[in-house]
């Protein structure tokens, strides 16, 4: 089934598509030994922390099931919850905007900032605004955005792309960070060392001026409570709290799936999120706000509700559970593929296993056809997912959608599709299958195996065998198939 007519995230705006397919981008990343060591260290550390704090929770599996059920209820009744949220936010003095896609969201936010007369905004770390490429849109309108999360600041100053949902600069080590600060941070002390405390102090000094002067802040949201109109951001550094309380105007961009029905649902999610995300029992800062309050915090609050392919994702009953995601990044940290390639290879702000199922659904599979195949289906992601998204099954489903999409676009089947059809045909006839097993044993395998001992000859092997023999030897062909041996007994 295809979902023509259901709008997906538009091309040419935001960051959901890579410049090249995953295998090619991965090859570039794999060649960087420093990157692989940085990633192995960082993901290994956070994996161990997560495992320790999760093992303390006796009802972890029940919490996961509850979270999945709550999110599924939200997704099944999304229209009702969204209009409920809208009504509550308006009642409490906020303004609600509906954005069908990245372009519309960028336009809305840019106009809102322009209306304040400010040429600068401070930003809380937000995946939604990275997804739509908001900073670039603001820059084109002559408005400068300052990222205030330390890792986002590193990415922004380095004119780089985030490579992890929680730790956008996970691919950088502290020497690289020092060099970025020295080159790009206004007013930085020239003798800055790569001591983590010194780097944090430099960022603090730099950001403090921004917090005190900014009149507009832009945030995302971890959760929105439909029946109270409350928005929430969880964070580690306190920069978010500054942005959410000091400026006069606060603009929040939120994906439409971030809803929870009631305040009590946070009981489930605030146990799951910090433990899955940073491996902490609780995150240091949890900020909540409901509309505006005279004399306290922002006097103007805008909520931008973003679709950008989410409704299209919701329409696929086998793919929609991806919208349960709470952006904890536990699946990235356990993924053996992510651990080797890092996030940039995925080409989207959503990397790793969740990115491999979310990005192609937001853009439509035709625009991200390599991502569903960027997994060994090892299942480590599903095991750690706090909202129990069966990512391996979803990857398999999306592989099917990619193949269907390719078939629909061509009169002739792809070589792979033709091969699969031929294999399926051969495997369902006893005589032809027995013959084929024998042929494989006697002939080609043996010859190719001998050829492959020579490095030059290995390169001459035709695809797809060359993909195998470039890093592995072929098995020694047996003297007899099992079925022939059995028949002889």
């Amino acid at each position: 089934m295809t979902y023509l007519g259901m709008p997906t995230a538009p091309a040419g705006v935001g960051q959901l598509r890579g410049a090249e397919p995953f295998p090619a981008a991965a090859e570039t990343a794999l060649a960087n030994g420093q990157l692989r060591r940085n990633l192995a260290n960082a993901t290994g550390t956070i994996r161990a922390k997560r495992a320790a704090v999760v093992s303390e929770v006796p009802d972890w599996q029940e919490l996961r099931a509850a979270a999945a059920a709550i999110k599924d209820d939200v997704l099944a009744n999304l229209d009702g919850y969204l209009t409920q949220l809208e009504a509550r936010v308006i009642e409490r003095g906020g303004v609600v905007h509906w954005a069908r896609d990245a372009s519309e969201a960028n336009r809305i936010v840019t106009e809102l900032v322009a209306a304040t007369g400010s040429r600068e905004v401070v930003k809380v770390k937000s995946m939604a605004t990275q997804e739509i490429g908001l900073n670039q849109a603001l820059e084109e309108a002559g408005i400068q955005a300052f990222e205030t999360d330390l890792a986002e600041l590193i990415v922004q100053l380095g004119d780089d792309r985030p490579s992890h949902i929680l730790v956008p600069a996970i691919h950088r080590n502290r020497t690289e960070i020092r060099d970025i600060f020295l080159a790009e941070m206004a007013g930085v002390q020239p003798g800055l060392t790569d001591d983590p405390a010194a780097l944090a102090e430099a960022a603090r000094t730099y950001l403090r001026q921004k917090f005190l002067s900014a009149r507009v802040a832009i945030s995302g949201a971890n959760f929105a409570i439909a029946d109270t109109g409350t928005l929430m951001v969880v964070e580690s550094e306190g920069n978010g709290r500054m942005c959410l309380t000091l400026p006069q105007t606060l603009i929040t961009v939120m994906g439409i799936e971030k809803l929870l029905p009631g305040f009590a649902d946070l009981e489930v999610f605030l146990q799951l999120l910090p433990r899955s995300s940073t491996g902490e029992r609780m995150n240091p800062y949890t900020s909540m706000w409901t509309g505006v309050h005279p004399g306290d915090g922002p006097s103007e609050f805008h909520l931008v509700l973003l679709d950008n392919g989410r409704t299209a994702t919701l329409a696929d009953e086998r793919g929609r559970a991806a919208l349960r995601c709470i952006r904890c990044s536990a699946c990235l940290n356990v993924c053996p593929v992510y651990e080797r390639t890092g996030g940039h290879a995925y080409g989207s702000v959503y990397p790793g296993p969740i990115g491999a199922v979310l990005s192609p659904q937001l853009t439509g599979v035709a625009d991200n056809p390599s991502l569903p195949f960027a997994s060994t289906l090892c299942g480590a992601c599903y095991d750690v997912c706090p909202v129990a998204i069966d990512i391996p099954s979803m990857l398999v489903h999306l592989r099917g959608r990619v193949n269907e999409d390719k078939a629909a676009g061509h009169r002739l089947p792809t070589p792979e599709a033709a091969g699969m059809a031929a294999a399926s045909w051969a495997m369902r006839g006893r005589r032809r299958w027995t013959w084929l097993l024998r042929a494989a044993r006697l002939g080609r395998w043996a010859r190719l195996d001998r050829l492959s001992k020579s490095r030059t000859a290995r390169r001459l092997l035709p695809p797809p065998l060359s993909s195998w023999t470039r890093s592995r030897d072929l098995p020694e062909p047996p003297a007899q198939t099992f079925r022939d041996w059995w028949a002889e007994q």
Partner: protein
Amino acid sequence: MRVALFATCLVDGLFPDVARATVRLLRRLGHQVDFPAEQSCCGQMHLNTGYPAEALPLIRRQVRVFADCEAIVAPSGSCTGAIRHQYADTARRFGDERLAVAAEAIAARTYELSEFLVGVTGVTDVGGYFPHRVTYHPTCHSLRLLRVGDKPLALLRAVEGIDLVELPGAESCCGFGGTFALKNSAVSAAMLADKAAAVAATGASVCSAGDSSCLMHIGGGLSRLQVGARTLHLAQILASTRSEPALV
């Protein structure tokens, strides 16, 4: 018990020693072994590469061939996983409820080797003899899809003479992943290099596992990198005795 062997296409064609070892082991434990000759492939490759329509006739075939078998044993965690977790769902996707019900029935009687030995027949000491240093890679689908737990290790620990050593980072995927090994061969090779280094660090002469597909990949890497260790399927170690030792 009367046991139908599902050899799997890979073992049938390329690793017949694994199926022969499975037969020898099951017979030694007093089971009667059948090999339904109409069997071919479970369809896992088609399913996991996104060709469910091409997998469907193979699912029908598997369900028909094994319909009357009391217990079906496969020396593969991933093929057993496909039958148990993907068959009925795929049949329903194509609107074939009767096939789905029949698939659920054979899935309930299809066991990966260690599941059958430990879980069904309650045996951990199968009377094996294998005086070598062995390390065990648990394979993702046995571990996370079938949840076989430490059944394979319990079987190996009871083998006489074995020096079983823990594989560092055992639960990390080896990088095979079916067609992933070809479509993303660079990433697959990077994962394989780490797995081969872990095997080398144990000083084991044999790396074992319950899936010939993962072992084909690991073995191909060990050979290319000249680690000095080879691969043997769990069934081959368990079947090994003083009179009929497995070759190392």
